[in-house]
């Protein structure tokens, strides 16, 4: 994977590599119009592999959330290509993109985004309902997902009666229950205290370990680093570095400078 992340611009349009569940190539995203137009992403390429928890880290305004939105098929890139679970996303309508999210993507949000009028179990079940899965099977699946995140005893609790950590764990269960290929988390620990932040990251790490999906978390929380299999650094709309836990820290400032030069050119 290192090669894919560090030399994306030179990669040919090859068939999806086994184990790669998401592949982005030369993603450019321009936001705004006319004089106010901003190039938020300047040619990002990356791959996400099953069994890996990848962190996307970078300063504010570096394009983290924009990239996450594109990888999650919420925003469409200005140029570049994205393939999720082997399905190319180019030219798809918003409805088709929603369908792709339904089938392959799970989201975890910074503010949990739980439905305040639904119980924990109902919040999880809602993710199945939009996928057309209903009835007792859906109830059992929702309960299992909550059990997996340690909230079997909070099935009937409303979000208002749950702590921040518990709410985020419900959100994790909701992202898991549809068995997506990719889980994308936006600042999953930002609203949590240290203890709950650790618990959630540990959970995400476990989820990534089950070898059926990839997890990408956008974060600037240093507490999350020990849980990552891989860290991608993003600056000014470009991936400027990659670090792999197994290989130790590899600083790639030189590569970053080269890429910046290419992008500006």
């Amino acid at each position, binding site marked *: 994977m290192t090669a894919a992340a560090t030399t994306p611009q030179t990669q040919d349009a090859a068939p999806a590599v086994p184990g790669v569940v998401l592949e982005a190539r030369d993603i450019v995203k321009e936001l705004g119009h006319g004089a106010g137009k901003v190039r938020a992403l300047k040619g990002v390429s990356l791959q996400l592999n099953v069994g890996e928890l990848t962190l996307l880290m970078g300063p504010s305004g570096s394009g983290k959330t924009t990239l996450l939105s594109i990888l*999650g098929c*919420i925003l469409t890139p200005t140029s570049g290509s994205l393939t999720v679970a082997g399905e190319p996303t180019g030219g798809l309508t918003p409805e088709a993109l929603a369908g792709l999210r339904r089938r392959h993507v799970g989201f975890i949000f910074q503010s949990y985004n739980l439905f305040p009028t639904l119980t924990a179990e*109902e919040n999880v079940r809602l993710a199945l309902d939009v996928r057309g899965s209903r009835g007792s099977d859906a109830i059992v699946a929702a309960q299992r997902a909550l059990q997996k995140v340690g909230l079997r005893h909070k099935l009937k609790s409303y979000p208002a009666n749950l702590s921040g950590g518990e709410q985020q764990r419900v959100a994790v269960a909701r992202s898991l229950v549809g068995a997506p290929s990719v889980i994308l988390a936006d600042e999953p620990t930002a609203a949590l205290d240290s203890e709950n932040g650790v618990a959630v990251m540990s959970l995400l790490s476990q989820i990534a370990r089950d070898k059926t999906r990839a997890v990408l978390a956008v974060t600037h929380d240093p507490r999350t680093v020990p849980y990552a299999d891989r860290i991608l650094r993003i600056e000014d709309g470009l991936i400027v570095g990659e670090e792999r836990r197994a290989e130790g820290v590899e600083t790639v400032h030189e590569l970053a400078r080269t890429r910046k030069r290419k992008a500006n050119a």
Partner: protein
Amino acid sequence: MSLTLAFRNLFHDRVRLAVTLIGILFSIVLVAVQLGLYLGARGMIISMIDRADGDLWIMAYGTKNFEEAQPIRARERYVALATPDVVSAVPLVTAFTDWRKPTGGSTLVVVIGADAEDGGLAPWNVVEGDASGLGVRDAVMVDKTYLAELGVSGVGDTAQVGTARVRVTGLTEGIRSFTVTPFVFTTLNRARQLIDMPAENITYVLVKVRPGADVQKVRDEIRTSLPDSEVLTRDEFRARSLAHWLFATGAGVALLGGAILGLIVGTVIVAQTLYSSTKDHLAEFATLRALGSSSGYINKVILMQAGLSALIGYALGMSIALAIVYLSEHTALPIVMSPGLAALLLGLTVAMCAISALSAIGKVMRIDPAMVFNR
């Protein structure tokens, strides 16, 4: 789950729910009362025509409704009888005249004269006495609704109509006049006497056509034979009476206008509250969208919210409307609630709420799912 979500969204904000339901409730009550009055008026206008035993009506030219008719010659009845396929031709007399109350003062009434043995137009819904008792000297039958208006308290009381004395021998219930002028049933000859009509005159001839015969054809044949009179089928006379009272006078337009106004007011209130509710839950709908829900799923949630509002509002509104109907039952202008009207109101309520949901759906369709990252 979509129903659960719609239900919870709806009941989450009780104040907004109350505003929505009050909007629907007022709308339903207003429309029910207006349309109920319209139906009641319609029923009163055509009740005599529907009750009379005649396929064809022979009358003076230009007759606009049942109550206001000029006299025609009684012998025209025989011309009708001579027409092929005519089974019977029954004379009927009606006219406005004064009823002098025994307690003093007078009121306008419509005298209806027909002989019971002819079977033309006899009083119905008789609650006291008997229509056959009209043969007794001075006998008349009136409706209970108008007893106070007529200055009598019931059977046995007497009054004066024109120059003749009349005695109430029977009472009906629910035979009311659109003009709020009481009907007074009596025999043909006594009616002539009460309204001072010559014996050679009548007001209508009720023609009964042989079963299976072509009524239009018989009508045309009688028209040819009676060029000085007008011959209408029952439906034609009914339509003419309704057109006169409801539309030429503007009464029906006012009632229907009120009903339309009620629908508009209801739609605006529901649309406003539903839009506002959707706006409050926009972030949740964006989350749903991010989770991959189709726009159809989200629309379903909003439409279910609208549908639930409609059903609850309808139940409350109909309860009040039925109470008003009950209270108006014995008044001169009763409000009618038929199963058809109840079904129509349900349909209108659901349609009103569905139309109201369009603005909310429009708002949701413009959701940027990326807003889920900005909460």
